[in-house]
């Protein structure tokens, strides 16, 4: 068992923001979400935070741990605690704070809807699938055969709509109309799921513009912070290339 000090951002409407420090008794093998759960269950039931799946599938628990955006359900306590200073837990940036660690995600989900984010996609024809390619070094990929009654294997998209990239993005901080890394990555995915020229034109139209891909400052923080290896930055860049090439072709009178 460890005795861990944890400093949690607190805010309730009409009150000043502050940090509360709790001292939590917890197993060494715990994840940070267990620390938050313990504070809530043992110390202060008025602490508001999101959580659901506890295994990085729902994306609801995203917070900042010691200043960096993380999913506390997959961050081990011992990886973020130096044994002395309190672990600081704060809500995501670039979202209005509703109360404590709880942020208002309405605008974010509206962006994801606009970007036509669907949560299932076609699976690759091999296993294993990994979030982080380094995690399973030594396990070689193997091709898989489909069962007779299935036309394809499907799976959930890597993006879990946790909002971490939105919090890490420096552009998002300054432009509240910016579609944001998650939204642009979703546009890229949607664009590659369709062949319909009108859909493609609409999706590219969303990405093209002052608040779309061109607004990105190329800080690549989204890709750095993403817990699911979605790599929004590369997708933004790929959209830029497509848009730029289309514009060039148009300039020279070529048909797109």
């Amino acid at each position, binding site marked *: 068992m460890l005795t861990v000090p944890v400093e949690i951002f607190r805010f309730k409407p009409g009150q000043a923001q502050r940090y509360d420090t709790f001292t939590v008794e917890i197993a060494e093998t715990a994840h940070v979400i267990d620390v938050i759960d313990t504070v809530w269950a043992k110390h202060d039931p008025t602490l508001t935070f999101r959580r659901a799946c506890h295994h990085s599938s729902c994306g609801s628990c995203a917070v900042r741990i010691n200043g960096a955006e993380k999913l506390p359900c997959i961050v081990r306590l011992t990886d973020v605690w130096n044994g002395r200073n309190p672990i600081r837990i704060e809500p995501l940036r670039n979202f209005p704070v509703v109360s404590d660690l709880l942020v208002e995600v309405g605008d974010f989900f509206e962006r994801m*809807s*606009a970007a036509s984010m669907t949560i299932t996609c076609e699976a690759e024809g091999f296993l294993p699938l990994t979030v982080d390619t380094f995690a399973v070094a030594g396990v070689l990929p193997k091709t898989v055969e489909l069962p007779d009654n299935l036309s394809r294997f499907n799976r959930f998209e890597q993006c879990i709509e946790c909002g971490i990239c939105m919090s890490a993005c420096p*552009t998002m901080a*300054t432009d509240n109309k910016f579609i944001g890394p998650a939204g642009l990555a979703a546009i890229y995915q949607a664009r590659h799921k369709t062949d319909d020229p009108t859909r493609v034109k609409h999706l590219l*139209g*969303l990405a093209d*513009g002052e*608040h779309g891909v*061109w607004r990105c*400052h190329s800080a690549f923080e989204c890709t750095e912070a993403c817990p699911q290896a979605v790599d929004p930055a590369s997708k933004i860049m790929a959209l830029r290339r497509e848009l730029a090439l289309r514009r060039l072709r148009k300039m020279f009178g070529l048909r797109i």
Partner: protein
Amino acid sequence: MSANAFDQESKPTVAWLWQVVTGIGLVLLLGLHMVANHFIAKGGLRDYAAVVAYLRNPIILVLEVLFLVCVTTHALLGVRAIFLDFGLSDRVEQRLSGVLKWIGVLTIGYGLVVMWFVIR
């Protein structure tokens, strides 16, 4: 009314592309400008007579004018990008773009005047 606020195709922008085009131009032209004016030139700077002789070369003049245009455009597009990060309203942003455009025209005009004074 209840449609998605983000599901709107906005006006395409060319600012970023121009930033890249002028940027690549600058890498070449500024390289030339630096080497020619500050590294090859004796003592790192040309004296007046040398400046005049240098600029009277028509190829150099064209390149220097191009350099002036690129550097001004690139700089002001950069300034605009910084200002956009202050979360201004659309109207203020438009006005700002207008002001910067005029500053650009004046800057290039001023540069041309200096060059004309030198080569005349």
